[in-house]
């Protein structure tokens, strides 16, 4: 009870103004969803309406978000601003309101989601125009934004969970958007189910939290944690944190639950850009930062987070080296980058995590949209020539630089950014994570290992990105003589977003420019109120960024690694001509392992999926249900009484008076025996 009082105290009411209109940011996409959904159900051909409504609602809510952001900036609010819409689950002392929480963290997320989202919507107008499910597509996309915003604005874990699962639903629908192809439908299903495994962890975390803290409001939980510093390092907190991280691992595709993300590329490319690169998959990182105090109170859990992150970063990067599908490469790159973010938050460098989240949103979205543009062009080409070659296989591309100049330039920027070349956005965020991981190594040596992983991953990142760029845009074109004529850059509705995101990937680093280069860590100070609870824990206090020479050294190493990687990548790829898929020689050795992604999917299928199905069908259904319970017990008893006992009695009734008399007398003798006493 007292705790929930604290929770009330820890919030300040909504000040009105743009922030007061915050609910609009959700309502607008919702309206878009309704309109588009209705249009799609009516099977109407009104594409113009869709093309307008779809993006428009996003830009509108982006505007609201921007206004709210500016207002917040002017306020220096220490406590989160909570808008209670209505009481959702009032059950005795467990009371969850449908409420929006607006603070510095959600503000950042809100901007990223609506901002990047808007441009991706815009891009989609061009990309999906010719698709028959155009309206349906935008309905889903708007729906996704609705849930994503609920996720970032929710003021308590259950409300966040609505968004958390909602985005899963949207991604399920969008991955399986072209459901005619079983593979796509499978991918969607896989994504949802794997996510559910994570959600299970999330649920358990909530239950533990509720039983411990008696509240599930963010502010309430924070208050509870700060109120009992004694809990730090306790098994309870560790358990909560780890279960919560299981949820994050599912959402953000970390080992061991990453396998759904590459498959998710089955969806339309803008979807991959928005959901599976920029926003949804980063929800896990957001959750950790949101619960920073919990993780900060459990160094063990934090270490696990960082460890898993580092491992994933490296692991995914290696796979990325040997993929030929352009989207698959980017998918694994996303997994790897998410790993970075977790290294960051695991280290306790929550800002760095968010920082990388933001920059990553920019350049990864850009990369995907670029890839989208490429695929779009390839499709058009193949469509024109009725060829059925794979439009996503980089071995069919090459030399596109001339045909798609804009795309080339923009993607190049993104590549430099992700490779961590200064002064591009990616450099700063990635460097900050690595540096702080290194610093953490001071009292937890294992972090040196993580740092090493990170560095290695960075190298690989640079290599596979260079490989991607080279195979796609450089060298000679392998699309085919006839097709080449049809390859050309996309319409402005698609190039504009590219350019915007390109600019952002260049200057995105400004958000948290380190003192080193004369910046003043704006994001650090901005998020300071949100992260104070964590910073006050021993874990938080023990983290100091590297100073002086070390700092310079680390930066130098990072930059060097990036450059080396790029060089290796370009040279190795351009060294000899790339064979077309048909002509490609069978991979050998480790390359083959990488090409087949370590056979992890196959492993899961054999070890988890099939056994479950087998047990359910053979053991539980056929044997237990049909055989034992129904067959043996239920029908068995019926059979016993009718066909055995009943029949036996019937046979004894043999029509012989003599026998009847005998039975009679047996009874008589027994009765007399009883009477004789």
């Amino acid at each position, binding site marked *: 009870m007292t705790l929930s009082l604290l929770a009330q105290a820890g919030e300040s009411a909504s000040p009105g103004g743009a922030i007061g209109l915050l609910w609009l940011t959700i309502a607008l996409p919702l309206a878009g969803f309704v309109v588009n959904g209705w249009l799609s159900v009516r099977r109407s051909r009104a594409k113009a309406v869709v093309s307008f409504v779809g993006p428009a609602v996003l830009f509108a809510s982006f505007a609201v978000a921007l206004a709210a952001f500016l207002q917040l900036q002017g306020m220096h609010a220490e406590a989160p601003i909570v808008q209670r819409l209505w009481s959702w689950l009032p059950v005795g002392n467990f009371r969850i309101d449908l409420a929006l929480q607006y603070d510095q963290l959600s503000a950042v997320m809100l901007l990223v989601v609506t901002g990047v989202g808007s441009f991706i919507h815009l891009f989609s107008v061009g990309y999906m125009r010719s698709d028959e499910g155009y309206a349906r597509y935008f309905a889903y996309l708007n729906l996704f934004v609705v849930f994503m915003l609920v996720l970032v604005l929710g003021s308590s874990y259950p409300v966040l969970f609505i968004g958390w699962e909602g985005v899963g639903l949207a991604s399920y629908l969008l991955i399986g958007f072209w459901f005619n192809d079983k593979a796509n439908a499978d991918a969607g299903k896989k994504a949802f189910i794997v996510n559910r495994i994570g959600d299970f962890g999330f649920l358990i975390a909530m239950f533990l939290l509720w039983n411990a803290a008696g509240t599930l409001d963010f502010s309430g939980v924070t208050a509870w944690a700060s109120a009992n510093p004694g809990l730090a390092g306790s098994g309870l907190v560790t358990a909560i944190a780890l279960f919560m991280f299981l949820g994050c691992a599912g959402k953000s595709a970390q080992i061991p639950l990453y396998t759904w993300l590459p498959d998710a590329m089955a969806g339309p490319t803008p979807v991959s850009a928005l959901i599976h690169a920029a926003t949804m998959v980063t929800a896990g990182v957001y959750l950790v930062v949101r619960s920073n105090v919990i993780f900060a109170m459990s160094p063990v859990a934090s270490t696990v987070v960082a460890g898993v992150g580092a491992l994933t970063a490296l692991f995914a990067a290696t796979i990325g080296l040997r993929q030929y599908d352009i989207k698959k490469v980017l998918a694994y790159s996303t997994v790897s980058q998410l790993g970075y973010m977790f290294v960051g938050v695991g280290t306790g460098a929550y800002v760095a995590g968010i920082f990388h989240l933001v920059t990553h949103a920019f350049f990864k979205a850009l990369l995907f949209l670029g890839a989208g543009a490429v695929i779009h062009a390839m499709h058009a080409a193949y469509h024109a020539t009725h060829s059925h070659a794979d439009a996503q296989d980089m071995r069919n591309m090459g030399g596109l630089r001339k045909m798609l100049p804009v795309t080339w330039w923009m993607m190049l920027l993104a590549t430099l950014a992700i490779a961590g070349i200064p002064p591009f956005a990616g450099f700063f965020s990635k460097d900050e994570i690595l540096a702080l991981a290194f610093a953490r190594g001071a009292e937890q040596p294992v972090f040196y290992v993580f740092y090493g992983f990170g560095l290695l991953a960075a190298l690989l990142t640079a290599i596979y990105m260079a490989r991607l760029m080279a195979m796609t845009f450089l060298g000679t074109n392998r699309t085919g003589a006839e097709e080449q004529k049809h390859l050309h850059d996309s319409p402005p509705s698609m190039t504009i977003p590219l350019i915007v995101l390109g600019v952002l990937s260049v200057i995105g680093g400004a958000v948290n420019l380190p003192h080193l280069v004369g910046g003043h860590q704006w994001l650090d100070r901005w998020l300071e109120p949100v992260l104070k609870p964590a910073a006050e824990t021993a874990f938080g206090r023990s983290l100091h960024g590297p100073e002086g020479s070390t700092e310079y050294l680390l930066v130098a190493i990072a930059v060097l690694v990036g450059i080396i990687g790029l060089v290796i990548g370009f040279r190795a790829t351009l060294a000899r001509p790339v064979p077309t898929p048909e002509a490609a020689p069978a991979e050998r050795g480790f390359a083959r392992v990488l090409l087949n992604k370590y056979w992890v999917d196959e492993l899961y299928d054999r070890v988890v999926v099939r056994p479950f199905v087998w047990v359910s069908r053979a053991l539980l259904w056929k044997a237990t249900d049909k055989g034992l319970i129904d067959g043996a017990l239920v029908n068995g008893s019926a059979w016993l009484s009718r066909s055995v006992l009943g029949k036996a009695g019937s046979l004894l009734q043999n029509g012989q008076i*003599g026998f009847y008399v005998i039975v009679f*007398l*047996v009874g*008589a*003798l027994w009765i*007399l025996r009883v009477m*004789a006493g």
Partner: protein
Amino acid sequence: MATFIFYFFAVAAVIGAALCVVQRSAVASAMWLMSTMFSLAALFIFLHAELLGILQILVYVGAILVLFLFVVMLLNLDTVGRDVRGPAGIGSSVAIGGLLLVELIALWRYTPERIVTELARLPAGMTVTLPAKSAVEVAVAKQGVVGALAEPMFRTYLIPFEITSLLLLAALVGAVVLAKRRI
């Protein structure tokens, strides 16, 4: 003397019954049954039921047994082959009959005194002395052999007596219906 008479007829009755059961021919069985009836009649008389003794002979021997014999003859059943059941049958019947006997023979120990004692639940050790003459003798002495039976028959036992008329009527009708050749 009395003892001898009793046991003589008793043994006769038993033998008669036993032979009636085991005789292969129906007529022979009937004959032995008749002998049993006679010895029982004798016992009745011995036990101060003179009238019933007579009736026993009249009704049973004179009517019922004749009826049996009549049917036996009519259906000419005397010639049917051995109808005694097989060894299993014999075994079971002897066993069951024996057991039944074991249950019932316990009544052997009953003396009038014991009955009275149990009746009135007299404290143990207290002995009852029965009147010199049995209840029946008293009645007979008062109203004569027939009167002793007739008096209660038409007073106390009026209703049963009437019922017997219904019984006979029913039996009559039934027998006719079933037995007459064509309806």
